[in-house]
């Protein structure tokens, strides 16, 4: 074989092994703890050591040194690489209320950028919602086809009592846990299943819309509708809004595979994924707010006028926020 190096493997190792051991130690400490655990002079040492081991690896391969050595250098290069190279810089969102990088404004901008699927999600949710409500108002037994009777009867009894007693503190905490677990889970699932061409999201939207509408209609037909409305008026802007938004984001994800435009389907899916991640995070936060209101406010014994005003205010605030916040500055689709 043509000699590409005039150094024997033993001499090569003897000359370089100290640097390798140093790099191995630094890399291990950086991965086990964090890069911040290293001293400044160690961090500055890391990149020359990494460049050197890249050269060593190339040299060892070209000189056909033995396989264990090349493997060792490979592994060391790989682990040092993952320490040194972070993700490519992307605009990091800040918590400020102004500017292009504001996370507070990025959410409504992203929602508006996907207004078509959001509108579709709105229809897919509130269409069945209205249908379920009207159907079970006119024919209460319709609700039993959507939601089991065993679940509906206790609801009627519960809401018939009204909220004079309020909720015990412990019960509120338990319900908060329940709402977070259940509702945020539903919204995230509604988003995730959108990856199947949007079909999963559409299914969840229709199913939830129909069920919620049917429950509302049934409870109203049994004469406890006023109390139920009073209960949901406080948090419905956040809760139903977030489910619609999550479903819309899921359908955007699915649509990116169905109609990828000039990209490959995979590239289109990944671009859409980066885009809608903001929307899903925002929807999750909306649902956390909804869970807090639902657990500690909606079932309280406050006067009904206050509850209606509270709910109405939030509905307006949410709508104005989603439609107008951060207008003027373009949302850049990645």
């Amino acid at each position, binding site marked *: 074989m043509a000699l590409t190096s*005039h150094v024997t493997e033993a001499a090569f190792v003897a000359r370089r092994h100290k640097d390798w051991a140093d790099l191995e130690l630094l890399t291990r400490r950086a991965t086990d703890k964090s890069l911040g655990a290293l001293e400044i002079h160690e961090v500055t040492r890391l990149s020359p050591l990494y460049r050197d081991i890249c050269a060593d690896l190339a040299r060892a391969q070209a000189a056909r040194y033995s396989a264990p050595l090349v493997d060792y250098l490979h592994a060391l290069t790989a682990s040092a690489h*993952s320490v040194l190279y972070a993700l490519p810089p992307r605009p990091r969102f800040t918590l400020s209320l102004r500017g292009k990088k504001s996370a507070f404004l990025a959410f409504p901008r992203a929602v508006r950028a996907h207004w078509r699927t959001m509108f579709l999600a709105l229809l897919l949710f509130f269409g069945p919602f209205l249908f379920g409500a009207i159907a079970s108002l006119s024919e209460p037994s319709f609700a039993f086809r959507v939601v089991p009777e065993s679940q509906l009867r206790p609801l009627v009894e519960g809401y018939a009592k009204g909220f004079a007693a309020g909720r015990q503190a412990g019960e509120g905490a338990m319900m908060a*846990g329940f709402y977070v677990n259940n509702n945020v889970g539903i919204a995230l699932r509604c988003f995730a299943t959108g990856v199947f061409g949007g079909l999963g999201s559409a299914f969840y939207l229709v199913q939830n819309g129909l069920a919620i509408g049917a429950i509302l209609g049934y409870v109203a037909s049994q004469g406890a509708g006023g109390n139920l409305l009073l209960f949901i008026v406080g948090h419905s802007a956040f809760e139903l809004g977030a489910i619609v938004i999550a479903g819309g984001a899921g359908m955007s994800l699915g649509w990116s595979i169905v109609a990828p435009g000039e990209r490959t389907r995979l590239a289109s899916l990944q671009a859409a994924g980066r885009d809608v991640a903001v929307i899903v995070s925002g929807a999750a936060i909306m649902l956390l707010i909804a869970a807090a209101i639902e657990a500690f406010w909606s079932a309280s014994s406050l006067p009904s006028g206050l509850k209606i005003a509270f709910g109405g205010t939030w509905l307006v605030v949410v709508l104005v926020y989603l439609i107008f916040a951060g207008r003027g500055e373009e949302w850049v689709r990645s």
Partner: protein
Amino acid sequence: MHAPLDTDVAIETPEHIVFRHRLAGPARRGIAYLIDVVACYFCVFVVAIIVFVAAGASDMMERMQQSYTSTMGLGFGLILLLLFAVQWVYFVVWEAWKGTSLGKMALGLRVVTTGGRPVGFGGAALRNVLRAADALPLVYVVGLVSMLVTSRFQRLGDLVANTMVVMIDRARAAAPLRLWPPAEPFELVAIPERVTLDADERTAIELFLRRRGTLGPSREEELAAMMVEPLVRRHGLNLPRTAGERAPSPSRLLALLYERAANAGRGEAPASSRQPREMERLSWR
């Protein structure tokens, strides 16, 4: 030593170095996931027991007849929050923070982007929210099918977030092979000045020489004899044919061949133009 397999993925760095990551397949990832799930639900279980004990104690102390106390409500709320965290938060936090999770750590797995870089918070969140789609219709069937049809064992979450799960092997530095005792003139009679082994031959001899210590002497010579025969034919070695002449044993012959191929024409300590690293850096400051 592992040859490039189709379960390896090559990554070219900005330094124009290509290194390989070994991909983790469904089996390993499944086991890692099981470990994670068991660990999580064990924690939830422990909290649940504490809650029940606390609720029972407070119930007794307050002598309340109703089974429902505020402690119990708080406790149930906590358990439900924990269940939520197990499903949706646990993996995101671990992977964004460490690039791995408890189960993955136990199996030496790591989540990286397809470019070999660490996965950020966005990527970790996306790939783990999509678990809900991968887990359909049950026990991750969709994810499994997706892993089997993609080249990098990616489930849907990996595809959307552009990530993959690789095995981090921390290879140990192995000492280079040395010829011992040094070659004697009579041994080198049969060996040409230049020996050119191809990659397969080199690897075979190398693996044999590294295993030599673990074999019995007769087995060692037996294996070596099987390897020497094709080498002799290909390189036209003229081994002594009569019994009177001293000849190296097959095992020794392999070591000599390897030494010639790897080290002939190479020196131990050539003049180097490289300055020691410490000096270079001091001069920058």
